[in-house]
């Protein structure tokens, strides 16, 4: 009996960590999605790029904490570079055009990693054990998981403070809600696009590094992680930061808890099925208040 409880608890703990990753990546994506109004497939590449920048920074001798920051800033810079070089030229075109353009951007960014990163680092582990944590109640807890959880909560908290307590954050939410109305009220929405892009890329960057810390760093890591992230963004209601975070944690925990009844190979299917079920029953997101 005690072992069963421990198994459940460890599923829950792993789900919490997985959920942190989905929630964090989902927060960045929903901010971008809410303001720019298109599905950006290249978002996964922002994550992978940041993970590689952090990897190369640690190889170059930077302490890991500093390297995380470098990677996250790198994610923001990649996002703004992609926006200025490519997406801004399509800003008055339909969301579908931008989606197709983001497919092209994603091809370029993902394969540039393969061109630029020396082959010995192309698939790699960070190889850092940041904390040592004893097992609690029979649950194996890895130090890196604790770091992922804490850092995610810190970033989430910081972003919500920004969105709710600062003028620029409130402007971001207003523009996400109704860009034209925000512009009428004197908000410089073009500058806001830049801020949101950098912030979204920065969050993607942190999420990418955390994802690498949880598993491994490889060029397709971000792309393959996109589906649960999109699921969280859509279930939470597009453009709704709190919704994306709650849906992200819910999906992560549901995936890991589902191990009780289904084999581990099929856990990713849980997020997919929840997404399909959610879209068919509540197309505006679980909280019903779509911002789009």
């Amino acid at each position, binding site marked *: 009996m005690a072992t069963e409880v421990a198994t459940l608890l460890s599923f829950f703990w792993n789900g919490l960590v997985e959920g942190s990753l989905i929630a964090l990546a989902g927060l960045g994506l929903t901010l971008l999605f809410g303001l720019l109004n*298109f*599905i950006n*497939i290249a978002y996964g590449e922002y994550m992978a790029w940041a993970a590689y920048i952090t990897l190369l920074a640690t190889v170059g001798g930077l302490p890991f904490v500093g390297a995380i920051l470098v990677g996250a800033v790198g994610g923001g810079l990649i996002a703004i570079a992609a926006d200025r070089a*490519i997406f801004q*030229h*399509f800003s*008055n*075109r*339909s*969301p*579908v*055009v931008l*989606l*197709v*353009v983001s*497919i*092209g*951007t*994603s*091809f*370029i960014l*993902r*394969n*540039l990693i*393969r*061109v630029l990163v020396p082959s010995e680092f192309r698939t790699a582990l960070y190889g850092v054990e940041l904390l040592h944590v004893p097992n609690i109640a029979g649950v194996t807890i890895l130090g890196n998981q604790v770091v992922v959880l804490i850092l995610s909560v810190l970033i989430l908290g910081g972003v919500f403070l920004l969105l709710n307590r600062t003028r620029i954050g409130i402007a971001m939410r207003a523009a996400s809600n109704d860009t034209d109305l925000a512009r009428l009220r004197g908000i410089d929405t073009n500058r806001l696009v830049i801020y949101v892009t950098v912030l979204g890329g920065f969050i993607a960057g942190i999420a990418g590094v955390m994802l690498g810390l949880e598993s491994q760093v490889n060029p397709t890591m971000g*792309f393959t992680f996109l*589906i649960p992230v*999109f*699921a969280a963004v*859509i279930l939470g209601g597009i453009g709704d930061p709190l919704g994306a975070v709650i849906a992200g944690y819910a999906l992560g925990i549901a995936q890991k808890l589902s191990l009780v009844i289904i*084999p581990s*190979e*099929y856990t*990713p*299917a849980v997020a*997919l*099925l929840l*997404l*399909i079920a959610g*879209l*068919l029953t509540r*197309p505006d997101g679980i909280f019903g208040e779509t911002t789009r």
Partner: protein
Amino acid sequence: MSVVSTILSPSLIATTLIFVIVWGMLAIGLNMHWGEAGLLNFAHAAFFAVGAYTSAILTTPPPESGGILEATRTIGFNFPIVVGMIGAVVVTAAIGVAIGATSIRLADDYLAIVTLAGAELIRLVIVNQGSLTAGTKPIKNIPRPLEGTFREVLGLGLPYSVYYVGISGLVLIGTLIMFRRLSDSPFGRVLNAIREDEDVPKALGRDTGRYKLKAFGLGAGVAGLAGALFAHSQNAIIASQFTASLTFIIWAAVIIGGSGSYVGALAGAAVILGIQAVLRVVPSTVPIIGGDLEVLRPIIVGILLIVVMYVRPQGMFGNKEQTLAGVKE
């Protein structure tokens, strides 16, 4: 001299042509979805995989328990190849309709995500149902149609792939004619109307959902046929040949060729494979473009896709007025 003779070898040309035909078929199917009906299907590589696996499983015998490598697969039917191909079309079309049915009511970008998720589900099933699909291991010894006949009756000493170009070419031409006819039929016009503004055909009493489902099934069925053609051109297939990035490459083919045009879809596939063929010839000592093919092709395709969307959104063969579905400003 050796480079030239390598490029001109019949088997290499034939292999490239088979790929053009298979990808062309995939692009035709996707053009039915996107070009005709404006449906954002991101499950195309999965439909392709379903077709390839269905035909391979139907036409190979269950593996004898001997080999360690193939030990997991237990199901196989050893039917004739024609049965495999028809089965591939039917099964893939049915799966296409099933995915379509869950999502056809959704707005554009939601449909894109649901189909992407559906494709991932299919991939999970293929990788994990080893008794049916051999999981991550290959399905081997897939039979080739009329192989003995060609060798014995014609006896020209050409590699088999040259004959296969003929077989698959006929299938392609038949498909192309059928889809162009469909496009000009009342069915095609209703699809185009749905693409432009779904409310209009609805107001005229058309059950637009049914039309969209039919389009989904037809396009998926062709992708399944392409999968069967691919499987029988290869000796073996393996799950890693059917990744989501293939979906995006076929999207690039349709857009570069010109969405709405079946000839364009074929031309787009040919352009992308042409880029690959040219890159293959460049010796690896040439800086930058002499590098890794698998890396360079997607970069060039990506740039081409963005440039086409900027300069000429109707692509090579698209009709500007007709094909600006969803491309309108």
